[in-house]
């Protein structure tokens, strides 16, 4: 069980440092986009990791639910993370 402290300044997915892990708290955006983000598995409580950034800085690549998902920072900013608490990074 990997336990990491979510950085207190990390409020959205876009603020995660490379290799950083967080837990989804909220998902925003217009209804269509919001639905798709949720459908891709970004539901509240889901842990994920920022694996890397593309060479030109954007998009970002996240690992969640056993797969890699690429989002632009614009979409990543719509996903709020739980703050302050200890969060489970990867399930055992």
């Amino acid at each position, binding site marked *: 069980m990997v336990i990491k402290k979510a950085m207190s300044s990390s409020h959205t997915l876009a603020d995660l440092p490379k290799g950083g892990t967080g837990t989804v708290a909220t*998902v925003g*955006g217009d*209804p*269509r*986009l*919001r*639905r*798709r*983000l*949720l*459908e*891709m*598995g970004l*539901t*509240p409580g*889901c842990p994920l990791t920022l*694996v*890397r950034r*593309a*060479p*030109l*800085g*954007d*998009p970002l*690549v996240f*690992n969640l*639910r*056993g*797969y*890699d*998902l*690429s*989002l*632009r920072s*614009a*979409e990543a900013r719509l996903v709020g993370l739980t703050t302050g608490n200890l969060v489970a990074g990867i*399930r055992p």
Partner: protein
Amino acid sequence: MSDLRTIALAGNPNCGKTTLFNALTGLRQRVANYPGITVEKKVGQIRLGDGSPAEVIDLPGTYSLVPTSPDEQVAAEVLFGQRADTKRPDAVVAVIDASTLARGLFLVSQLLELDRPLVVALTMSDIAARRGIVVDDRALEAALGVPVIPVVGHKGVGVAALRSAVDRALEGNSGSTGAGVPKALAKAIAASSTSTDPLLSEIGGRYAWIDALMAASVRSGTKSHLTERVDGFLLHRVFGLGFFALIMGSLFITLFTLAAPLMDACSSGVAALGHWLTASMADGDLKSLINDGIFAGVGGVVVFIPQIALLFLFLSLLEDSGYLARAAVLMDRLLCKVGLHGKSFIPLLSAFACAIPGIMATRTIDSRRERLITILVAPFLSCSARLPVYALLIAAFFHHLPGWQQGLIMLALYLLGIFAAFAVAWLATKIRGRVASTPFILELPSYKLPQPRQVALQVWQNASAFLTKAGTTIFALSIVIWAITTYPKPSAERITADTSTFTAHWQAPADTPADKLAEVRQDALDKALAGKALETSIAGHLGHFIEPAIAPLGFDWKMGIGLVGAFAAREVFVSTLGIVYAVGDPGDATDGLQAEMLADRKPDGSPVWTTAVATSMLVWFVLAMQCISTTAVVRRETGGWTWPLLQLGGMNVLAWIACLITYRILA
């Protein structure tokens, strides 16, 4: 529509659905389009357990039954029985990737609600096993209430079991034929639906059910270390972009070095076949129609096959390995800046071989706005049909430059096209007003070794789709071009007059052996008369007619005829000039055409083809829209005449202005 029973394969993109479809149907499949849209419809035949035939439909990959792209829309409509052209499937096979199970189960949670017999095929279990993921398919089956069959499509593992599960599901006596939504799923959704956020509660409820299901039946493993390491390199700031440049560079070099000789071989092969078939025929219109109309038309289509096949070979290798998704990630930032999308990359790349497959590939772009802009600018990218024209003009007018500088000119032409595409995309976005940029949500599949059989099948299907879509137009146009360059024929008096003019002026080349003199003379006369005949034909009149419009660009009526011919396909420009300049078919004698063009004089004695004219012509070929087949495809893709006409008019006006500026500066 037939009354055969149909089985639909549904699943996420990259889940191994196509591989499974091929394993189920073998080669008994065909690719068509859903009427009115360009989403591909793949249908195959199988025999059920009782010996009766049935149809298998490979639906486009989808993440959800609430669609966001034209592709996904079709999948949802077929499954809900909302398409008039496709019967509601009698059974559904949900194809889910064992290594990304949660997302696949999300789709399954929606498929369960369709109330159709459902069978789950679990693919990639080999990959999952390597990562330590163990799926207890019996436990999963019990929880879902439908059969769960592990398969490895390309090895045929589990395919027989899947078939019999489908048989039982169709017979409806397996006790699990869509008996309804599992209670746990209904309960999970109901449990969260008390909240004030219906969207969140619906999807949250499904994932809560999935989490519980997976906790009970899946031992989770590690993520893919191989993929992680490869991505560390391929998405690296320096190596990643370097590798990308290397891949694209080698793609281009291969297309040029390999495809050019293959193209030549194809067209001369077809022409030779025509001449061989008609060798015993008397000269006349019929022979001319067969050789210069039909076989030239077939040749005009066939020359594209090597390029297109090579392009699709590259694309399938890149796609099946998982690299294309990375290419979209690498290029998104750049493309986004000019109003395009990471997913525009593949269409634009294809457009370098031919705009038509490029435009057809835009259907994976979710946003209509970005899709239209991609379609709009794709023809600016120099397709393979421009290559012979570039090669002819560069060789003729820049032959005094060293080879590498000629290469640079070629490169500059390609860059001009890319620049024009980006500039117009940027402008179009500005004009239409930038709404919030379309989201970029892209799964990066794990890397896999492409399967040769699968790749070969894709190349074949894509190449034949191109042939039927573009080939028919190019072929028909070739015959039209033949007719307008042949009729009306010059009168007998005209021919007599032209012959005597020829006799008065013709001098045998100094080195002609005496015994060959008559032969050489006849040959030269034939070519001179062919040139004169072209002048009196409809095309000749058209050339004269458009001369005032193109004269400011430095073009004369002979070039005008060439430009008219180029509307069938751009490379026809070269062969049309060959006829105008009376060197016959320049296929194997481009040198002769170059010499004639250089020697051509205006009435005042100055050369017709100056460097300024040639440069202007090159700019014209980079920027102008002169491919009717592309226009036809754009009409079909956009469902109306607005976009194709806008594109046709806009590109040609732009090309005209650019040529005018070029010619004024250089002349």
